[in-house]
């Protein structure tokens, strides 16, 4: 194994992507990113627990919030996992974990890799997708993803200062803007998905109706746990619908 690895690694023109993409050194750095996020999560949880009581949130409330976030992300996480698995052959496990599972998203990272390969005159996954092209694409993806983090590092303190100033001048602004911004973001995301495909639009409709029904039911039955599971159920129902509709129309 190690001898083929060394032989393959020395040849940038080889199309054996796995030999480079799954190299131990990439694994080490990928697990490093996992470790950093894990540490960050622990620090944030502790900080929120300490601060909770000062704004009237009991430990019970914070644990509920934690559990809700965890349960509601099961569906989206598994969806990301499915897509990530499909991309293992193109990028190898460590790069898929870091670039698609974390930091970026499927859409941007695959687009970045496609663009970067094209700039070198190669097709992503095509016969000219060599170890060299993979490595350059990975660097381009990483630099591009790094720009998001750099922008976050630079802009967050600036915007925080702006927000604090705004809330001092006019507290009503801060009571209105976050909610409006949230609605604006998801309304636009929903509406921009609509014209892409008829089945996509129907899938949105299914997920919308299931969620509305579940939230009404949760309110009627006063069932908080149902609010936690609602997103996972809505996504599953919508994906199952999309699967059968998609296979029925393409078969």
């Amino acid at each position, binding site marked *: 194994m190690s001898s083929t690895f060394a032989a393959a690694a020395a040849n940038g023109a080889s199309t054996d992507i796995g030999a480079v993409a799954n190299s131990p050194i990439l694994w080490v750095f990928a697990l490093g990113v996992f470790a950093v996020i894990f540490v960050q999560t622990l620090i944030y949880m502790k900080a929120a627990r300490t601060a909770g009581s000062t704004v009237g949130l009991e430990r019970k409330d914070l644990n509920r919030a934690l559990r809700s976030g965890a349960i*509601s992300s099961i569906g989206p996480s598994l969806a990301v996992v499915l897509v990530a698995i499909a991309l293992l052959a193109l990028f190898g496990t460590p790069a898929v974990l870091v670039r698609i599972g974390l930091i970026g998203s499927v859409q941007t990272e695959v687009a970045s890799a496609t663009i970067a390969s094209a700039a070198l005159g190669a097709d992503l996954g095509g016969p000219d997708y060599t170890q060299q092209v993979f490595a350059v694409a990975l660097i381009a993806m990483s630099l591009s993803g790094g720009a998001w983090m750099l922008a976050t590092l630079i802009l967050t303190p600036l915007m925080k200062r702006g927000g604090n100033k705004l809330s001092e001048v006019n507290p009503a602004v801060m009571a209105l803007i976050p909610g*409006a911004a949230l609605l604006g973001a998801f309304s636009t995301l929903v509406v921009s998905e609509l014209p892409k495909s008829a089945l996509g639009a129907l899938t949105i409709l299914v997920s919308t109706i299931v969620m509305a029904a579940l939230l009404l039911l949760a309110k009627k039955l006063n069932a908080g746990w149902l609010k936690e599971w609602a997103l996972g159920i809505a996504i599953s129902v919508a994906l199952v619908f999309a699967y059968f509709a998609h296979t029925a129309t393409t078969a």
Partner: protein
Amino acid sequence: MTTSTITRPAGLHEFERTTSRWGRITMVAGLLLSLAGPLYIALFMDLGITLAHVITAYLAVATTFLVFAIVEPITYFPILGPAAMYQAFMIGNIANKLLPAAICAQGRIDAKPGTKQGDLAAVMGICGAAIVHLTSLLVFVGILGTWLLSAIPESVTEVARLYILPSIVGAVLVQAIASVKQLRPTLISLAVAVVVVFVVVPAVPALTYFGTALGVVATAVISWFARPRG
């Protein structure tokens, strides 16, 4: 109003200090680690990579995404608040996973977005999402990935790839509406979205990548001017 944004309890001050200091430190560490792997390959693996290759490829990608990298943090800041920014842009998958988790956490304990309770609920929700996500990635992609690749039919992964976003955003919009509980901004946001997607972007294709940002800014500004005044 359940919150006062002017008087800041000492405990909250401490929370902001901790999260902005450690948020920044961990994000810098994550940034460096994510660049270190590719850099090692380029420098030490003898693949014949030149600086010209890297510049050519990165410039092509940056032309498409650099502006987006700046616009997206600005777009999500009012929703996430400063603390969660450092989580969101390192964990990734914000619109399809972290925001839904944050909204769900807020809805569960009836804390509105933008309030101090809402901020803490969002941070806890994102922590919960991070734990689930890190675990499922490690187990299902890191350990079992290669085996699952051969076990899962291609039609399943293809449907997941094509319809993942549609199956999530509809439900999350409903959740957001239920959590914000304000009829006027809700109607304004839907009208704005229709105008942005079907009028503004087709008329000015250069704005394609700014759809969400436009929706956020326009909804916030119009909601502010159209607010009920007493």
